[in-house]
């Protein structure tokens, strides 16, 4: 490629101007020091590590087994703003053996928690359905806490075409 100092300087000036002029939106928020705009830190997305930390925060150090839980979520969703999700747990739902709680976590939303529910033997059936937001293609994990103190989980990988939380008004 031919070296062109003029083109190079133009490009550099363009980038400088662009950075200075980027007074709107997220870019400015991130670069916003000294530009006179309120410094709004774009939330760092949760990572598998923060999801793991959130899980430990909720359930403690107990081991989590695979199985018993069925997480039902479409593998490919068009809009991350509304994703229907259902969790059902195999359990007789008796006083001695029932599901106490179900927690749902995600990897890449700004926050790793999605929802946490508590139920008891009266539920009859340990099934939950709700609608959630997904900020990116990611893995969603559901963990059930049983009355005997054990934890069971299921994870589903979801591809999101139009993520939530990115639009501005």
């Amino acid at each position, binding site marked *: 490629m031919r070296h062109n100092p003029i083109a190079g300087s133009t490009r550099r000036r363009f980038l400088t101007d662009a950075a200075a002029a980027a007074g*709107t*939106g*997220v870019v*400015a*928020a991130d670069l*916003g020091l000294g530009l006179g*705009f*309120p410094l*709004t830190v*774009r*939330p760092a997305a949760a990572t598998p590590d923060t999801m793991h930390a959130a899980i430990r925060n909720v359930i403690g150090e107990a081991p989590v087994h695979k199985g018993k839980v069925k997480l039902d979520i479409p593998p490919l969703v068009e809009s991350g*703003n*509304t*994703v229907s999700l*259902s969790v059902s747990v195999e359990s007789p739902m008796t006083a001695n053996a029932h599901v106490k709680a179900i927690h749902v976590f*995600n990897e890449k*939303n*700004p*926050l790793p*928690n*999605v*929802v*946490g*529910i*508590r*139920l*008891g033997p*009266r*539920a*009859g*059936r*340990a*099934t*939950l*359905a*709700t*609608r*959630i*937001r*997904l900020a990116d293609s990611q893995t969603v994990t559901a963990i059930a806490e049983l009355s005997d103190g054990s934890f069971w989980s299921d994870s589903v990988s979801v591809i999101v075409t139009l993520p*939530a*939380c990115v*639009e*501005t*008004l």
Partner: protein
Amino acid sequence: MARAIINVPPKARRGEIIEIKALIQHEMETGFRVDNMGRVFPRDIITDFICKYNDEEIFRAELFPAIAANPFFSFFTTAIESGTVAFEWSGDNGFSATASRNIAVE
């Protein structure tokens, strides 16, 4: 007051497992969205949802911003006796809403 759409079967056999569905109108502003000036829309979400059957708690949910607008929950309970199924939502900025439905158990 926010509009709620609730589905509780009006009649059930004793011991039958019934599905309860509840949806409430609410924006669920995440607190992560910014406007074109880089200002964050402050968080405004429902944080708690409780369902009681004749004053006994049968379902409780803790909601996070990852719950879609107009939070919807579907869950199950055993129809034990005739009475009232009461719903209670509470959240940011003092948000509070209640609703109830009667159920007849034979």
